[in-house]
């Protein structure tokens, strides 16, 4: 039985085109990543970059959500939510790090091409970067903890990574060193959330090559080998007026809702491979010197049951969120309080369940759980990194409480 049938979601939401895309991506996963792992481990040049080229350029994910008339894949309606969720699940099953990079691209392209607040000019400006035939990594730069206690506008208590000041027709972006969500050292463009001066949040597209953009030295992190990350400083970076892709809290929340959905899909996808690894372990391992097949031991089985339950629930939560985001006509705008908080909640729950399921799987596999040879521990490190990067738990909880219990001050 296939993973998708073992852990059913409302398939009525999937179109045939989605299904065939899933097939394409899982073929890519097998041929370009999984089969080459023993040889290349997590090598960036040897394994991940070539795989990304195939995926982003040859298969075309990089421009999937841009309109056809601009050379994109034309999946530029809210329906893209379900499609990209199904796609991301398969990408992450191959490599959660690549999935995370795609999640960032997706969030940015949503702002450019799908958001109700989109406008033609920024889209036209940015499209060539994605359709130009070169790999174009991108990253969001989001509000984060700060380092001083000065009074200033903050986003749910977090400092804006930069400020943007309108000067004539353009903007001047200053701030940092800030930590991008991913590939600060390799990204072509950044979607930087800025304080537009009066505390209004906006997102501006800042090309990595723009004058005044300084990339720090790549730093080490626990996972996400596909993301070569470095802190970035913006020193009076001049960008055109069209760099402002969104303005205002609701528009920003809409982008984040999609981003959380994409990151939930990354976690859910990692569980698909976790299941594959544990199934093989459980089938072949023998314990207690009684020739008892591992999975048939009741204690092992009880944990496998819990693990499976979390796999199924993670898929359900992710696809439900995708469905709600794909039908603003039914469920309202992605930036509205209730949907935005549903997105935060889904991501936090899926991230947590994914970690629990992987932690338990590692416990069942004992030393094979942490030996790189078995390939489980890389997903475990990656998903933990995603969980920590996307939103600090404190902020997620505050946003949820604010909505669910009508807070006024926090």
């Amino acid at each position, binding site marked *: 039985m296939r993973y998708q049938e073992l852990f059913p979601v409302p398939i009525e939401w999937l179109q045939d085109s989605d299904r065939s895309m899933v097939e394409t991506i899982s073929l890519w996963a097998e041929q370009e990543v999984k089969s080459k792992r023993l040889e290349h481990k997590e090598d960036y040049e040897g394994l991940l970059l070539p795989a990304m080229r195939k995926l982003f350029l040859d298969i075309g994910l990089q421009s999937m959500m841009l309109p056809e008339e601009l050379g994109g894949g034309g999946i530029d309606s809210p329906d893209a939510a379900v499609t990209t969720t199904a796609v991301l699940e398969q990408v992450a099953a191959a490599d959660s790090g690549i999935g995370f990079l795609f999640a960032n691209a997706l969030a940015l392209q949503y702002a450019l091409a799908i958001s109700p607040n989109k406008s033609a000019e920024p889209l036209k400006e940015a499209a060539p970067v994605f359709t130009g035939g070169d790999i174009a990594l991108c990253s969001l730069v989001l509000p984060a903890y700060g380092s001083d206690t000065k*009074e200033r506008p903050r986003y749910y208590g977090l*400092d804006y990574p930069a400020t943007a000041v309108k000067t004539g027709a353009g903007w001047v972006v200053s701030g940092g060193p800030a930590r991008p969500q991913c590939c600060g050292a390799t990204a072509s463009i950044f979607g930087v959330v800025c304080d537009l001066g009066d505390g209004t949040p906006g997102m501006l597209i800042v090309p990595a090559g723009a004058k005044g953009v300084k990339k720090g030295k790549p730093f080490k992190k626990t996972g996400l080998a596909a993301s070569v990350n470095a802190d970035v400083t913006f020193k009076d970076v001049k960008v055109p007026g069209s760099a402002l892709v969104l303005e205002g809290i609701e528009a920003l929340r809409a982008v984040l809702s999609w981003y959380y959905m994409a990151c939930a899909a990354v976690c859910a996808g990692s569980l698909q491979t976790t299941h594959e690894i544990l199934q093989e372990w459980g089938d072949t391992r*023998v314990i*207690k*010197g009684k020739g008892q097949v591992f999975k048939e031991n009741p204690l092992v089985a009880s944990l496998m049951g819990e693990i499976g339950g979390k796999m199924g629930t993670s898929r359900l939560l992710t696809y439900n969120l995708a469905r709600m985001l794909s039908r603003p006509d039914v469920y309202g705008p992605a930036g509205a309080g209730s949907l935005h908080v549903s997105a935060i909640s889904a991501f936090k729950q899926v991230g947590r369940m994914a970690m629990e399921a992987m932690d338990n799987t590692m416990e069942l596999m004992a*030393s094979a759980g942490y030996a790189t040879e078995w390939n489980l521990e890389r997903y475990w490190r990656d998903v933990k990194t995603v969980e920590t990067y996307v939103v*600090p738990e*404190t902020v997620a909880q505050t946003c949820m409480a604010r909505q669910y219990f009508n807070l006024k001050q926090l």
Partner: protein
Amino acid sequence: MRTIDDFTRPLEYLSPLDRYLGEIGRKWADTEVIPIRRDFDEDWEHHKLIEPCFRSLQAEIGFQRMLFPEDLGGWGLGHSGYMGTGAARLFEEVARADSGMAVAFGVLFWPLVMICVEPHVNRRLCEEFAPMFMESRPVFAANAMTEPQGGADIENMEIVGGSTIQTTAVLEGDEWVINGHKLWPTNSGGVADLFGVVCTTNPGSKDPDDLAFIFVPAKTPGCTQGGPYEKAGMAADKNSDIWFDNVRVPSWFRACGPGLDALYFKEVVSLGNLGSLAFVSGAMMNVWEILRDFTSETTFRGKPLKENDDVAGVLANFAGGVDIIRVLTYQYARMLDRPDLYGDRWSEEIVAKGRAYKYFACDKAVEDLKKVMNLMGAHGSDRAHDVEKHWRDIKIVQLWMGGKQLCQMEVARWFYECETL
């Protein structure tokens, strides 16, 4: 400012050596390891950075000698009555810097326990192997237990006895001839000079008399080791395959003899659990230090992180957990130091309670580390803060020695007198 010394220890249990061990270990950690440990992950294969740290700890300071009798150049910890609490303190300090080093360091004593600790000192073997550990280079020993099939079943003595052991020892004249294949021992991969090998003298037998614990110097002909495995963490702890191909050692290299090898081998399990507790305690105290500073310097809602009530809630849970794990560590150490009160170190009760404390402490630590990583945001998985390092390392401590399920079965067997598990 609060320090890790503010965490509770049962003060009445501490060894006279405690302050001495603590200060030396702390200084070594702060000056030689913590400044460079961030690059240990990439050093997993060659130990260019790691080896010098072992050298100063084991050879220069000389801790590798501590278990042997004084007259053989050791420090006599094996008959001090303070082996447990002394080891706990030292292991905490080493693990505070790097759990991988603590594991490799701790495991070097594992086989030696079989011959250096009262009431089962094997004087002849002490004399045989002591000189090796008096050398001025770091010397390691290892327990070769786990085998390809069955894995941790070797540690699952209660249920399978020695019946699953595939490594055979045959007595030919006054020599043991050993054949077999072992996996995973800490300090394999070319590190150890001496192995304690768990063998069977009668394949398939459950009779404790047939389990033999035999010492094999690594350079003995026929004993070969593979290269180290790459792991999620613990770069300082090398694990690999060991093959024994008609390896011959003198008959008196058997640790304690028929029945006694199997009996005292359980003491090795108890000490392994004490070590694990101390590793967790030390690593968690270091994370607490990092958190204390991070949450004072980083701001949220325009205040230091730690001054936000929601953050403080997470910080409180973490500190409480560390304190509790530390209390348990020393309580168990004391139980090993006072068999007159608590029973033999190899008794089913002491083994089972050690398993229970060990897996509790590991589970709790891993859960609490996950929460503080989520609290720290991107910094939580950033190697620059070393929190994620301890998370990866403690996860490994959680999984080693047979993993959680084996612990649960031993605990259930003892507390509920289960008969068929």
